[in-house]
């Protein structure tokens, strides 16, 4: 099995589906039906293949697995390799992408009427790009996928979106493009530093301390927009509100994770000194994001917007956990990203269900759905509670680990984040109360149909996974652990080495002492490593 190019197959099989869809001929209805069927079967095959990745994955090692290398640009000094591979950090993101694509195709079965063929093509292309991002081990290749993802998403928001779709699509595209072009320059700088565009080479390279800061900032520009971190989050509510339901699902489920993935794959291991240096900044931005967007979410009357702001808050937890930089917090951040990928995807689908029926997302238009739509109310409740972080759901595991890890680093940060948990419970429960409980006051709500079989089939896997991850997180933590531990140790070792570096005491000494100043904001890394090791 291991000499099969399984990873490439998962990545590019959706494009084969695109080819089939393009050949569909006939009247509009036939083409639409064929497009739906081909898209669904392609995405299911891809998902099954990606399950094989999980089954074959060796959780004992932090090394990259399913590695494929083919020479791509071979002439000149600037040689680029097509290099694929996944480790514990990227494995579940690949699975998340392939799963959510199936869900999206299923969720768009009946509510997309215009240009179904193009719609399905966009989603399959999007799938290729997403899987490509998480399994690229070459910078240029990564960047091609990372920026290429903008094209299908731009079209999805712009063509099938709501009334302000043009504004939202442009804002989404230009915000993220501005961030990512700066990271392109950082990638080129890394190339001149290491002599290769290979990510594994860069991971093993020690960059000079002053350069690390610049590179960190360039990557930050890119990933902060994607996450999104306050204050560059403003594209997200617009994009979410205007995107079609499935577009929001992918946006919240996978695209936001690209930012977190970027931090954990590039920023932390490659620029350990800069990461330590900027930890206070990252903590501050995370705390602001968590608290501020929670308050903003409280004030929303549009369901999608509320969930969009809650996404920003949840991703604030993720960045906080990543920069707490100990094994618990980083694992927690990973679980939190996966959990958020499932939960927010489900919540957007939940909004989509009632939007399909009543064509409004205004919270005040709803109420008392528990009577007419009991199954809907149940799914909504589970996902709402998972979003709040109730024990037994995936949200709890992630948030608990993050808070645990952060507490060891900074009690203040942990305290600030914990207040947001409380706010999170407020806005989600408040939303649930207004939509599902209460008495039915409008006639059109009385006649609402509950979830049909297709919708149940869409929610079932999400619900199962959320509970699985909440009740028995080890299935997910085990493959992640080796890679995360390796990462944390590597970062701490690099920081330690810089602190001990007596060759250039004038510069390195000052930097190391600021980085390790034992105030409440900055972790005392030395002790941490020892405890983690034990």
């Amino acid at each position, binding site marked *: 099995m291991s000499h099969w190019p399984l990873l490439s197959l998962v990545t590019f099989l959706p494009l084969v589906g695109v080819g089939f869809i393009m050949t569909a001929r006939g009247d509009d209805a036939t083409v639409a039906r064929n497009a739906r069927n081909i898209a669904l079967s392609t995405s299911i095959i891809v998902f099954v293949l990606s399950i094989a990745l999980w089954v074959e994955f060796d959780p004992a090692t932090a090394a990259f697995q399913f590695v494929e290398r083919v020479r791509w640009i071979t002439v000149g000094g600037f040689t680029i390799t097509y290099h694929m591979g996944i480790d514990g950090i990227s494995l579940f993101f690949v699975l998340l992408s392939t799963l959510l694509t199936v869900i999206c195709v299923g969720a768009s079965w009946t509510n997309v009427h215009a240009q179904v063929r193009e719609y399905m093509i966009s989603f399959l292309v999007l799938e290729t790009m997403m899987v490509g991002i998480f399994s690229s081990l070459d910078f240029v290749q990564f960047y091609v996928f990372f920026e290429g993802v903008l094209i299908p998403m731009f079209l999805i928001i712009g063509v099938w979106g709501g009334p302000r779709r*043009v504004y939202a699509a442009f804002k989404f595209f230009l915000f993220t493009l501005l961030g990512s072009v700066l990271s392109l320059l950082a990638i080129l700088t890394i190339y001149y530093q290491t002599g290769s565009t290979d990510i594994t080479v860069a991971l093993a390279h020690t960059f000079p301390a002053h350069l690390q800061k610049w590179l960190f900032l360039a990557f930050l520009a890119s990933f902060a927009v994607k996450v999104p971190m306050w204050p560059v989050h403003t594209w997200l509510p617009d994009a979410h509100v205007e995107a079609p339901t499935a577009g929001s699902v992918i946006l919240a489920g996978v695209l936001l994770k690209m930012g977190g993935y970027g931090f954990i794959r590039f920023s932390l291991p490659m620029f350990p000194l800069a990461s330590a240096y900027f930890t206070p900044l990252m903590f501050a931005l995370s705390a602001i994001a968590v608290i501020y967007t929670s308050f903003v979410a409280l004030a929303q009357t549009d369901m999608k917007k509320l969930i969009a702001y809650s996404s920003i808050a949840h991703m604030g937890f993720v960045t906080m956990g990543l920069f707490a930089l100990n094994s618990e917090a980083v694992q927690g951040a990973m679980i939190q990203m996966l959990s958020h990928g499932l939960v927010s995807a489900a919540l957007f689908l939940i909004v989509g269900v009632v939007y399909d029926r009543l064509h409004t997302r205004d919270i005040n238009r709803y109420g008392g759905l528990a009577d007419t739509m009991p199954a809907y109310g149940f799914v909504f409740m589970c996902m709402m509670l998972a979003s709040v972080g109730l024990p037994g759901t995936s949200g709890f595991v992630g948030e608990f680990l993050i808070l645990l890890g952060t507490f060891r680093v900074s009690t203040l940060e942990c305290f600030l984040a914990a207040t947001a948990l409380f706010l999170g419970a407020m806005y989600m429960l408040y939303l649930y109360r207004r939509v599902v409980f209460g008495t039915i006051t409008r006639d059109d709500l009385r006649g609402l149909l509950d979830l049909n079989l297709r919708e149940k089939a869409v929610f079932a896997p999400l619900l199962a996974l959320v509970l699985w991850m909440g009740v028995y997180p080890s299935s997910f933590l085990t493959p992640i652990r080796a890679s995360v531990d390796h990462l944390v140790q590597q970062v701490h070792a690099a920081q330690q080495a810089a602190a001990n570096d007596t060759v250039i005491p004038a510069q390195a000494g000052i930097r190391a002492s600021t980085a390790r100043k034992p105030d409440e904001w900055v972790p005392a890394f030395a002790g941490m490593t020892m405890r983690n090791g034990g």
Partner: protein
Amino acid sequence: MPTVPLPDLSPALPEMALAAAAMALLLLGVFRGEGSTRLVSWLAVAALLGTLVLAGLFEGERHVVSFNGMFVTDAFAVFVKVLVLIGSAVSIILSLNYGEEHGIARFEFPVLVLLATTGMMVMVSANDLITLYLGLEMQSLALYVVASFDRDSVRSTEAGLKYFVLGALASGMLLYGASLIYGYTGTTSFGAFAHLFAGAGKPSDGLVIGLVLVAVGLAFKVSAVPFHMWTPDVYEGAPTPVSAFFSVAPKIAAIALFVRLLVEPFGGLFAEWQQLIIFLSVASMVLGAIAAIAQTNIKRLMAYSSIGHVGYALIGLAAATPAGIRGVLVYMAIYLFMNLGTWAVILCMRREGRMLEGISDLSGLGRTQPGLALALGIFMFALAGIPPTAGFFGKLYIFLAAIQANLVGLAVIGVVTSVVGAFYYLRIVKVMYFDEPGAAFDHPIAAELKWVLVVAAVLTMFFILLPDPIIGGAEAAAASLFAP
């Protein structure tokens, strides 16, 4: 009487063949009369392709000099000549139908294009200020006529006149600069310059002024800001296939000339001219990005777009390293086919036999003509430099060189303006896909146009799968400029 030995003609064989073909076709056209345009055009395309083969024969050559050192053929010249010849040939193909439908199908057009192309090839191979000027003027004179080829149209004649007046001014400056350089050095030979300035200290002021004036003249030809004013008007006014021709072949040739002039003979004065190129580059990128936003006419939009692209190409020249020149060449090669493809789409914008130029005329093209819209979409994302299209690789190699040469500030300005520029390219995608459909364009698209479109779109989209030939060619070409 001393006998002058005949110089070795072989390096100039492609140029001579093309010139001979142009004259032969002129005779053929005159004898066969007005009805022979299509025949002459196809023969001209054949002549260009034949010349391409001839030029390709010199591919392996590192540095062949002839005509007493006034003419040079090297890998750099061959690479650029191939691009120019392709650009000219495609432009003639694009003009076939347009000419017939607008009553300007005259056999002089392909002949003039051939003559202009001959001039461009001489420019690219120039190894002496005199050769440079001869090539440049031969190209320009043919282009002045071509710009006003639709002689009964006020817009076209205005475009031609404007181009002529400003072009003559630029030629004048260039000539004045060249004479200053000659005055201060006593030679016009590139080889002698290179020898003179290698390791030299601070050059005299007169020489620097001369160099600046020559650079200004060339900046006019490549339409770099602030010498770009003619471009939008000429692109808008000239017949569309002529605008397409202007945006590729002469521009590529002029940039190549710029590169050779500054890198080879004046390489020693790098410190003097680098700031000038950086200024031209920044100004072109910024203006190209910002001024295009407000355009409603797609031909004007493409003019500003081309100004912006020259700005990016000049980043590579500002680096003045082998990597930088490779970047310029890769950029121009990719620019060639994405730009020709875009112009082919613009030529398809016809309703009831009338050409349309408004961006809003494209509205809903994604639904009325999905194939055409897909092609234009690919070209727009490519021009914006979004991967996985070819346009991204053009920018990648440029920024790679900028980072290597420590021009980080220039690279940052470059990427930021590329985001601003992405806005107006996206606007076209938006009009095509997000807006409600208007009336469809005329069906069917002429066969030649369709072929150009398909080939350009495939090359732009799938460059990523096989990038080696172009990048390898550019690499060898750039290396030949720096060969001792």
